[in-house]
């Protein structure tokens, strides 16, 4: 197999905080009855986490984690090299039950926003309360950034991860970069 290349091949910019494209990550869109214990067990096993995320939460991280997407949809994160096997694993474990697991790793761009003021970079483009009282580690929103759909979560202090569609990866990168440009510090949070 030829080498797989992510949308921006790891581009990054340094403003008042750092915006970087984080390369390829395994992502599986799962739709199903999230209250089903068998589904939860299988998903946790695949992602290596203890429990499914609560509403608007992320458990784990890019190398193994699950993000809440909607009342019947999750995004499962696994290492990119394992994603095909992991989808097969889910399909065989849950064979016979009604659910959907589909590999969307290549349909996404993944970004990191890191550094002091990272909250402000997102608050400039997403209609979300990014204040420390309202948004802490593990919190996630599936929303929009300016004109495109996106989901993001707080991975740690001053550190956010964001996913959007691959086709608009270039737009998202430029958007986040201009929002992080020096001189644009708001000093609000």
């Amino acid at each position, binding site marked *: *197999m*030829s*080498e*797989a*290349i*992510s*949308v921006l091949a790891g581009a990054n910019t340094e403003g008042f905080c750092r915006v970087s494209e984080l390369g*390829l990550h395994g992502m599986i*869109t799962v*739709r*199903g009855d999230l209250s089903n214990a068998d589904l939860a067990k299988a998903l946790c096993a695949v992602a290596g986490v203890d429990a499914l995320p609560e509403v608007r939460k992320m458990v784990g991280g890019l190398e193994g984690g699950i993000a809440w997407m909607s009342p*019947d949809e999750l995004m499962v994160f696994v290492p990119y090299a394992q994603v095909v096997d992991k989808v097969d694993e889910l399909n065989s474990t849950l064979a016979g039950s*009604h*659910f*959907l697991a*589909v*590999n*969307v*790793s*290549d*349909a*996404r761009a993944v970004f990191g926003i890191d550094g002091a003021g990272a909250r*402000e970079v997102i*608050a*400039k*483009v*997403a*209609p*979300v*309360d*990014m*204040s420390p*009282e*309202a948004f802490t580690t593990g919190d996630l929103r599936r929303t929009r950034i*300016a*004109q*495109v759909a996106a989901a993001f979560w707080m991975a740690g202090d001053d550190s956010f991860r964001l996913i959007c*569609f*691959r*086709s*608009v*990866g*270039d*737009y*998202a990168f*430029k*958007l986040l970069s*201009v*929002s992080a*440009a*020096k*001189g*644009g510090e*708001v000093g*609000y949070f």
Partner: protein
Amino acid sequence: MSTRLSKAGRLVDTSKSVAFTFNGKKMQGHAGDTLASALLANDQMMVGRSFKYHRPRGIVASGAEEPNALVNLGSGNTFEPNQRTTTTELFDGLSATSQNHWPSLDFDIGAVNGLFANYLTAGFYYKMFIHPRPLWKYVYEPFIRQSAGLGKAPKDTDGDRYEHFYAYVDVAVIGGGVAGLQAALAAGEAGAKVLLMEQTAHFGGRAPVDGGTIDGIEAETWIAGALARLDEMPNVTVRRRMMGAGVYDHGYLLGYERVKDHAPELDAPRHRLWRIRAKQIVTATGAIERPISFAGNDIPGVMLASAVRDYAVNYGVAVGQKTVVVTNNDDGYRTALKLKELGVDVPAIIDAREDGAGALADAARKAGIRVEPGKAIAKVKGGKRVEGVELCRMQGNGGAVIETIKCDAVAMSGGWSPVVHLWSHCGGKLVWDEVESHFKPDPDRAPTNQDGKPFVITAGSASGPLGLGEVLADADAAGKKAAEAAGFTAASTPAPNGDARDEKPMQPVWMMPSDAVYNLRMKMWLDYQNDVKVSDVQLAAREGYESVEHTKRYTTLGMATDQGKLSNINGLAILADTLGAEIPQVGTTTFRPPYTPISMGSIGGEARGDTFQPIRHTPIQQWHIDNGAYMEPVGHWRRPYTFPRGSETYEQAVNREITNTRTNVGLLDASTLGKIIVKGPDAAKFLDLMYTNMMSTLKPGKCRYGLMCNENGFLMDDGVVARLDEETFLVHTTSGGAAHTHAHMEEWLQTEWWDMKVYTADVTEQYAQIAIVGPKARKVLEQLGGMDLSKDALKFMEWTQGKLGGFDARIFRISFSGELSYEIAVPASQGRAFWDALMEAGEEHGVMPYGTECLHVMRAEKGFIMIGDETDGTVIPQDLGLNWAISKKKEDFIGKRGQQRTFLASEDRWQLVGLETVDGSVLPDGAYAVVHGHNENGQRTMIGRVTSTYYSPTLGRGIAMGLVKHGPERMGELVEFAKTDGSTVMAKIVDPVWYDKEGEKQNV
């Protein structure tokens, strides 16, 4: 003349001088000046000309309410018209030019309009330019357009950047005067998350100028203390240079922050538009002083009394050497006293009230100022500058002038009106206050939230009270009330103690003198910018305009860039008087956001340049760009239209691509094609409802073309469906229809067929999809190797998957061109490498990439329809001869009942045919087939139209598809098509399948 005083203003730093230019003339100001105060310090009283009569205009106010002093600011990529000098902070190198004059501010040709003022009264344009009708388009409109508008439009792209910012707070306080400070303190102490914004660079509002004590200390000292306390509260944010621009439903508030207008050298966004959600909004927006309508009140040098005071105290500028004060209330006396204190001569205070003022009058007399109660200004003398005022009795017609008082400035005070704009934006109602003669917010009719409860509270003068003590008490209560409404418990600390108001009641003066004659009334300006006078409003009333909204539009009162901040109340009082109605019955016009104009840049935010609009890129996009593709927009994608080589025209390139694909092999980037996974036990049943044809009978491993209609029966999308396994389908949609089709499916699943066991997922971007098309397509793929793609191993309309040349490939043998053709999907991250591999493997077979136009021509040669060409939302599959794709066996599908309606079932509908011009030329796109006669609209009778039209290099002639009435029954007949140049062209109706009707070529 206006000059700098010896005592420095409280806001300026006289040790720092700042250089700027006005109309090219070099001037000096101080750090801390506004452009207005600096102009006045340089004796530049006249700063522009009015809109209609080009009358000289001077600075009238000292803040956001200024109607006159608007300038063009900056040059090149920082040029911006209509900038208010009173809210523009001076910076080094500022360059301003005055507006609405020609050839110069001092000498203006347009001022000749003033000589015809008798004819240019209210409604002049409506009356004059309505007849004769034909003159409107060629004479009147160009003339009016040329003279319309203040300022110039910028020529260059804005050189600055802008941004938005989302914030969520419990209590937003608008206005940083003493009321706003106290409201923020009260809400902050209760524990609420507070955002306090002040539109200027300074807190405290009017209090430091007007004086008085709070809790026994000077107002200015109290303000500094309040700011320090707010600063210590972690739950309170204080922003200056940020205006509350608009209040909207559900506590949505726009804050307009001018980040670097005062310091253009900063590398920062120029403006930041805050998009705030607040549980409660406190408007501590203060009050605005009203002008008085006396003849000549628009002559430069006539100013609001409060503004004269502001310039003296804040900036150390005396607007005149001899300043007459004219007032109908006690507050005007403060200006006289302050000027006197600073050594400026005040020849007289003219008080319209017979019994004059209270304690302040005594103070004025003690200071040696002449006070004239019961008097009025009959007329201001002067042209470009005040030279004196004629004194008369207030009660009378102004005919008997008592004396002429020499002066070079007039400070007028007609009373104060609360700034109710933000209260009113979202539906807050007003009541008329008989004592102060102003409209004030009615707390019982506040703007309400989704729960029916009020979400806007006014504080301080914005509520109505004008005394310092009353203002602070009201503001403290407002802050506490807001915190409580947001779910906090307010502290029981008492409100600060401010001086109580000790003044005599004001007396409304809507016209001065009371019964002024017409030639005085037509010199009494209400709206300075738009030249609306007392006489104009009176005329409108006499002509039957009873509604204040109609009068506004008829006279243009309050329609200028200041939106009537000064003229509103005076204008409607005149209207009420003329109509013989009470002012509250006449009411106000509607207050709409923004409070003052905000920049277009701030509204757009970051959406400009590279981030103006998201452009979708396929994984192979860069190759297209690098290889000179000519792009066309397809939805938000940019797809190669063609790949011209050397000096080829686009047309030549397209023809080459077609011929090469039909003789050798071509590559198309089809990644934009929509791809949706539909999975579940009920997936087949669901797709039978989504498509007009049967999908449940499709076997795994097979593909089928399908049509999708909306519930009205109109064709919406088409594409190839592949069955992946028993309960999983992969649905292909058009490039532009992917998101919509997915949403359409989800809507039916979530709202109508929620009991169906089906899940969908949009996987459009998971794959790069490439079409390999042409007689040599198989040879190219065999060269890559790894999979058996022989005629029998993968038959037409089948799919398979495996490793093709090392790539994870899913191969569909489908054809949109009539040639041997494969569409191959690989993971997007392998897309570019796969494209490169195909180009390399195809080199010896003559491979060439082709674009969307080649795709279009080839499908037209085969008679295939294109969604968006043959369809436009009014076309059903039956119109396109696609009856074969509409299942007769199925009980139902979306659109079935719609298609049974009489109009859609009619045999007279225009139907799809092929068209060939007799002369071989290409028909114009969209051309109509015409016959003799005219329809009810006076147009030629039409019996059809062209939907697709191309030059076919394969056939060497123009070919077209079109919808023609009874078309399929008229094969071989000639139809006439109208061209845009007025001529017509004859075309023969033919079968729309020109190329390989038997389908042998795609089946090899």
